[in-house]
C-alpha cells in the first residue's frame, strides 16, 4: 500500500509541474440540465477562438479547460439541447456552471455544428453511447424499454437468445462483459430467465458500452464494459413518472431534498403475471414474478465536495406451491465522494458493495434439498482526473476489491456435517494511469497502463487437478495469502483525421479476468455460478487489435463506420464432457482449460437527426476455442459463434404526437452440437456425436413494430401510449431443437423445433407529472 501511495504522489507531481510553464488560467465547473439539474455526461465546452480546443464533461458533469490569459467565447452544447454561448475574460481561475435547456420540439433543437463530428475525432473505438430517450422508441418484447436489448441491435453485440437480455460482445462469452451500475458490478443482469434486464430505464441516465478497447480505468473482463449510470434525481422540482403495462408496471419519484443542493430518486418495478395466476384455482400457491428498486440521493456539501449514495435491489421468485422454489437477485450499493482538489484536479472516491445469490429449494414430504451460491464484493475505487492542459488529460488511481465467493452446493435436509459450504476469498487490486493526448489537430492518442493482481486468500483447501484427476492440494488457513496472479495490461488507441469527413483509428488492449462464470447453457440461467481464480483456474487474458475507418456524410447527418478486430484469448474455462456441476464435491475437477480466438468485421450506418432516424448494422464474426480434452483437442466453434448478424432500426417522428418505429433483425444460426447418428442403449434411442458445435441452428429473423402517441399536455401532466408488436410476421424461430423417437412411428426419429413467441402484442401507458 505504501508503494502505491508513493507512486501516486510521484505521478501527480510530475504531471502538475510539467504543465505549469506560462501564465495560464483554468475555467472549470459543471454542465447541467436546466430543468432537472442532472449533470450532462459528455456535454462539450468549446473555445470558439481556438478551433479544436475544448473539453467534454466527465461522468459527473465536470469539465476543466486551461488556457493562456485572454478573452474567449465559450460555447456549451449537448445533443438535443440548445447551445449557450458566453464570452469570458480569463484573467484568473474561473468556476462556471452551464445550465442547458432541452429542446422542446425537434425543429427547435440547435446542435452545435462543431461537435457533430465528434465521432471522428474521439480516440475511443468500439464505443457506443446509448441515448436513453432513443431507447424508449425502439420496439422491444413486452413493450418494456430496455438498455440491454437495444444494445443488441448494435454491431458486434449479439443477443444470447430469443428475448434474452444476455449478450455476447466480439466473440466473448456472456460473463466476459463487465456490467456496472453506478460503478457496482452486476453479476446477473437478467430477470425472469432473461426476458427482462435488471436495468429499469426510468432510473437510468446514461449507458455506454466499450467493446474491448477500454481505457485503463476499466478492467476485469475480457470482452466489454457496459457502464450504466443512474439518474441523480431532479434538484429543482418533484416529479412522478411511471408506466402501466400488461406484464409489469413502473413508478419513479424524484425531487429536491434541498433545492439545488441535494436530491433523491426512487424507482421501482414489478411484474404481476402471478396476480393473475392466483386468480385461477389451478395455479393457486404458485409464484412467478420479479421486482426491483433503484434509489439514489446526493448532497452538495459545497462547491468542491459532493456525496452520492445509490443502491439497487432486485429479486426474482419462481415457485410451485411449497415443493419447488427458486429466487435470485442482485444487490448493489455505491457511496461516492466527488472532490475538486483544484480547478484542474478532480477526484472521485467510491465505496461499493455488490452481491448476487440464488437459492433453489425442492421439498417433497419430509425430505428437502437445496442448491445455492453467492458472490459478494467490497470494493474501494479511487480515481483522479487531471486536466493538465488543452492537449493532455490524465486519469489515474487504484481499485481494490475483496470477493467472497460461495460456490454452488447441493444440500439435503438431513445433511448436518461435512458438506456444509465453505466460502472462498479473493483480493483483486489494480493500479491504473491513462493519458489522452492531442498530438495535433489531426492526431490524438489515448494510452494507458493497468497493473492488475488477484490474490487467493486463505480459509479453504485448494485441490490441484490434472484433467480432472486430483494430483495435489494446498491448505490455506484463514488469514493466509495464497498465490497472487499479476498482469500488466497496456492499452492504446489513436485517431487520425484524414480530412474533415473521415478518420482512421487503431487500437490495442490487453484485458484480464479473475472471475469466471460457470454455465452449461447458452442463455443466462440464475443457477450459473461465479468462481474466482484458484490453483487450477488462472486469470483469463485477451489481446485485442482493432482498426477502424469512420466517415460522416451529408453535413454530418449520416455516420458510417467500419471496424475490424482480432482477439486472442488465454486460459479459457469450459466444462469437460460428462461434467457433474451440482453434486461434485469440487467443481474444479469438472473443468478444462484452453485458448480462444475471435475476429470480425462490423459495419454501422446511422442517421442521427431529422424526422426519420435509425441505423443499419452488420457484423461478420468468428469465435473459436481449443481445449485439450474437448473435441479431440481440435479447434471448435464456441457456443456463441454466429457468422452474420444484421439489424435495421428505423424511427419516424410523423408529427409531434405520433412516432413509429420498426426493428428488423436477421442472423445466421449459432454453433450447436447435433447428432450425426444413433444407436440403441438399454432399449432407448441414443445419439452419436462426431464433433462439438459442428452444426448450426437455423437462421433467425424477426420484425418488431412500435407506435407511440403523446397525449396533449395538461399543465404538468404528460402521458403517452405505446403500442408494440413483437415478431410482427409471426416467424417461428427455433429456440431449441431436440431429437426424439417419433411417438407415432417407433421405427423413426425426428427433429423437433421449439419456438417461444409467435406474436407478442404489448400496450403500455406512460405518465409523468
Amino acid at each position, binding site marked *: 500500500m505504501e508503494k502505491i501511495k508513493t507512486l501516486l504522489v510521484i505521478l501527480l507531481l510530475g504531471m502538475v509541474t510539467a504543465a505549469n510553464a506560462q501564465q495560464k488560467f483554468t475555467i472549470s465547473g459543471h454542465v447541467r440540465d436546466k430543468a432537472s439539474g442532472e449533470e450532462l455526461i459528455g456535454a462539450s465546452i468549446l473555445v470558439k477562438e481556438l478551433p479544436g480546443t475544448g473539453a467534454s464533461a466527465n461522468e459527473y458533469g465536470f469539465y476543466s479547460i486551461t488556457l493562456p490569459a485572454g478573452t474567449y467565447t465559450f460555447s456549451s452544447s449537448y445533443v438535443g439541447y440548445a447551445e449557450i454561448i458566453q464570452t469570458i475574460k480569463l484573467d484568473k481561475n474561473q468556476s462556471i456552471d452551464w445550465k442547458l435547456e432541452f429542446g422542446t420540439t425537434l425543429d427547435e433543437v440547435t446542435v452545435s455544428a462543431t461537435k457533430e463530428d465528434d465521432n471522428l475525432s474521439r480516440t475511443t473505438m468500439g464505443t457506443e453511447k446509448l441515448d436513453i430517450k432513443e431507447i424508449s422508441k425502439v420496439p422491444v418484447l413486452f413493450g418494456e424499454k430496455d438498455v440491454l436489448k437495444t444494445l443488441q441491435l448494435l454491431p458486434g453485440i449479439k443477443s444470447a437468445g430469443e428475448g434474452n437480455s444476455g449478450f455476447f460482445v466480439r466473440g466473448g462469452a456472456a460473463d466476459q462483459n463487465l456490467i456496472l451500475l453506478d460503478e457496482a458490478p452486476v453479476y446477473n443482469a437478467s430477470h425472469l430467465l432473461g426476458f427482462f434486464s435488471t436495468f429499469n430505464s426510468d432510473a437510468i441516465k446514461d449507458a455506454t458500452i466499450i467493446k474491448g478497447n477500454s481505457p485503463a480505468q476499466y478492467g476485469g473482463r475480457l470482452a466489454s464494459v457496459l457502464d450504466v449510470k443512474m439518474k441523480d434525481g431532479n434538484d429543482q422540482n418533484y416529479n412522478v413518472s411511471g408506466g402501466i403495462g400488461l406484464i409489469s408496471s413502473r413508478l419513479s419519484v424524484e425531487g429536491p431534498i434541498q433545492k439545488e443542493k441535494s436530491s433523491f430518486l426512487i424507482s421501482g418495478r414489478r411484474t404481476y403475471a402471478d396476480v393473475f395466476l392466483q386468480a385461477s384455482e389451478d395455479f393457486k400457491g404458485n409464484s412467478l414474478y420479479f421486482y426491483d428498486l433503484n434509489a439514489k440521493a446526493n448532497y452538495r456539501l459545497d462547491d468542491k465536495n459532493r456525496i452520492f449514495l445509490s443502491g439497487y435491489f432486485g429479486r426474482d421468485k419462481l415457485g410451485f406451491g411449497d415443493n419447488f422454489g427458486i429466487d435470485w437477485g442482485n444487490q448493489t450499493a455505491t457511496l461516492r465522494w466527488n472532490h475538486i482538489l483544484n480547478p484542474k484536479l478532480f477526484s472521485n472516491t467510491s465505496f461499493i458493495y455488490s452481491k448476487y445469490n440464488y437459492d433453489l429449494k425442492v421439498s417433497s414430504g419430509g425430505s428437502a434439498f437445496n442448491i445455492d451460491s453467492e458472490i459478494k464484493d467490497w470494493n474501494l475505487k479511487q480515481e483522479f482526473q487531471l486536466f493538465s492542459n488543452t492537449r493532455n488529460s490524465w486519469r489515474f488511481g487504484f481499485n481494490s476489491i475483496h470477493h467472497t465467493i460461495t460456490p454452488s452446493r447441493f444440500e439435503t435436509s438431513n445433511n448436518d456435517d461435512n458438506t456444509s459450504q465453505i466460502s472462498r476469498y479473493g483480493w483483486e487490486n489494480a493500479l491504473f494511469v491513462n493519458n489522452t493526448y492531442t498530438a495535433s489537430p489531426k492526431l490524438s492518442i489515448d494510452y494507458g497502463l493497468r497493473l492488475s493482481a488477484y490474490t487467493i486468500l486463505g480459509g479453504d483447501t485448494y485441490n490441484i487437478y490434472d484433467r480432472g484427476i486430483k494430483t495435489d492440494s494446498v491448505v490455506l488457513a484463514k488469514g493466509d495469502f495464497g498465490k497472487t496472479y499479476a498482469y500488466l495490461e497496456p492499452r492504446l488507441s489513436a485517431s487520425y483525421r484524414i480530412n474533415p469527413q473521415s478518420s482512421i483509428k487503431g487500437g490495442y488492449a490487453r484485458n484480464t479476468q479473475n472471475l469466471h462464470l460457470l454455465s452449461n447453457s447458452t442463455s443466462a440461467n440464475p443457477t450459473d455460478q461465479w468462481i474466482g481464480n484458484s490453483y487450477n483456474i488462472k486469470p483469463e487474458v485477451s489481446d485485442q487489435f482493432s482498426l477502424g475507418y469512420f466517415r460522416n456524410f451529408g453535413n454530418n447527418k449520416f455516420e458510417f463506420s467500419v471496424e475490424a478486430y482480432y482477439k486472442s484469448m488465454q486460459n479459457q474455462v469450459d466444462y469437460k464432457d460428462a461434467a457433474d456441476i451440482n453434486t461434485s464435491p469440487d467443481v474444479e475437477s469438472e473443468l478444462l482449460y484452453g485458448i480462444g480466438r475471435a475476429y470480425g468485421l462490423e459495419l454501422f450506418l446511422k442517421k442521427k437527426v431529422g424526422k426519420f432516424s435509425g441505423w443499419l448494422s452488420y457484423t461478420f464474426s468468428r469465435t473459436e476455442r481449443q481445449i485439450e480434452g474437448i473435441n479431440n483437442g481440435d479447434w471448435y466453434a464456441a457456443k456463441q459463434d454466429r457468422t452474420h448478424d444484421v439489424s435495421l432500426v428505423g424511427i419516424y417522428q410523423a408529427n409531434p404526437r405520433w412516432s413509429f418505429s420498426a426493428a428488423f433483425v436477421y442472423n445466421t444460426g449459432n454453433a450447436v452440437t447435433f447428432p450425426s447418428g444413433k*444407436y440403441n442403449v438399454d432399449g432407448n434411442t441414443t445419439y452419436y456425436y462426431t464433433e462439438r458445435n459442428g452444426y448450426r441452428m437455423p437462421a433467425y429473423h424477426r420484425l418488431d413494430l412500435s407506435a407511440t402517441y403523446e397525449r396533449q399536455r395538461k399543465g404538468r401532466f404528460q402521458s403517452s401510449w405505446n403500442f408494440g408488436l413483437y415478431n410482427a410476421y409471426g416467424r417461428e424461430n427455433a429456440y431449441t431443437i431436440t431429437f426424439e423417437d417419433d411417438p407415432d412411428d417407433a421405427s423413426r426419429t425426428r427433429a423437433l423445433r421449439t419456438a417461444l413467441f409467435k406474436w407478442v402484442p404489448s400496450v403500455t401507458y406512460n405518465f409523468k407529472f
Partner: protein
Amino acid sequence: MRNVALFFIFMVLFSACEQEIEIDLNSADPQIVIEGEITNQKGPYTVRISKTVNFSASNQYPPVTAAVVTLSDDLGFSEKLAETAPGVYTTANLQGQEGRTYTLKVESAGKTYTAICKMPNRVEFKGIKAEEIAFGFSTDTLYSATPLFDDPIASGNNYRFIQYRNGERDKSITVFNDNVNNGKANERPILSQEFEIKRGDTLVIEMRCIDKPIYDYFFTLSQSAGQGPGGGTTPANPPNNITGNVLGYFSAHTIQRQTIVVR
C-alpha cells in the same frame, strides 16, 4: 375480464410451439456399440453388439455377428459366449457375484475391445416411499417415489434406479451417487418429468448398485437428454469403460426390486 387477461399472459409466457422440422445431418461411419451386463442375479447374461446408423435411417441397428466374446472374472474363470441371435451373445455357466471384478473381451473384424468392471457390494434396498408432489400444472394429484436405503459410511457408492408403473418402464435415466449425503438414509426422490405416477398405480423400482464408470456413463446420458431453456448442456458421447474407441458400456451390478401400490 380476468380470464381474458389470464389467457393473454399464458399465450405470452407459455405458448411455446413445437413442430417437426427437417435438418440436414451429416452421415457418419457406422460405429460399433457394445452393451454388456453381468449381475448378481441368476444368468444367463447377455452382450449385445450392433452398429450405429444415420439419424434419418429407420431405428434398425445392424447386428455385429461372428464376434468372439469372452467374459472372465478375477478368480480365473473364463467363458466364451454363444451367439444366440444375430449380435446377441449369451453366457451358459457364469454366475455373477458381488465384489468380483469382471473382464469383457470382444474380438471382431480384427479388432479387440476390452472392458473391466467391478460389481459393487449390494446396499440393502428397504422399500419405497411415495409422496404427493405439486409440481407443474397438472390437475391430477401426482406422486414421486423415494427409494429407501442407507448409504454406507465409506464414500464412492453409485446407484441407478429404474421405475415401472403398472409394468410400463420409465424411459428416463436416474442415477444417484453419494457426493451428497454420504453415509445417510436416502431422501432424494426420483424426479422423472414425463412419467406420471397416480394414486392406485402399482410401482416397481429396480435398484442397481453400479460401478463409478457406469455412473458417469448414465449421468452423461441423462444430462444430454435433458434440454433446458436455450438448449441445456452441450451433448457428448458418454465416456465409457471399454477400450478401443467404441460406444456402449459394460456393467457389473447388483439388482434388487421393491413394489408398492400408491395410496
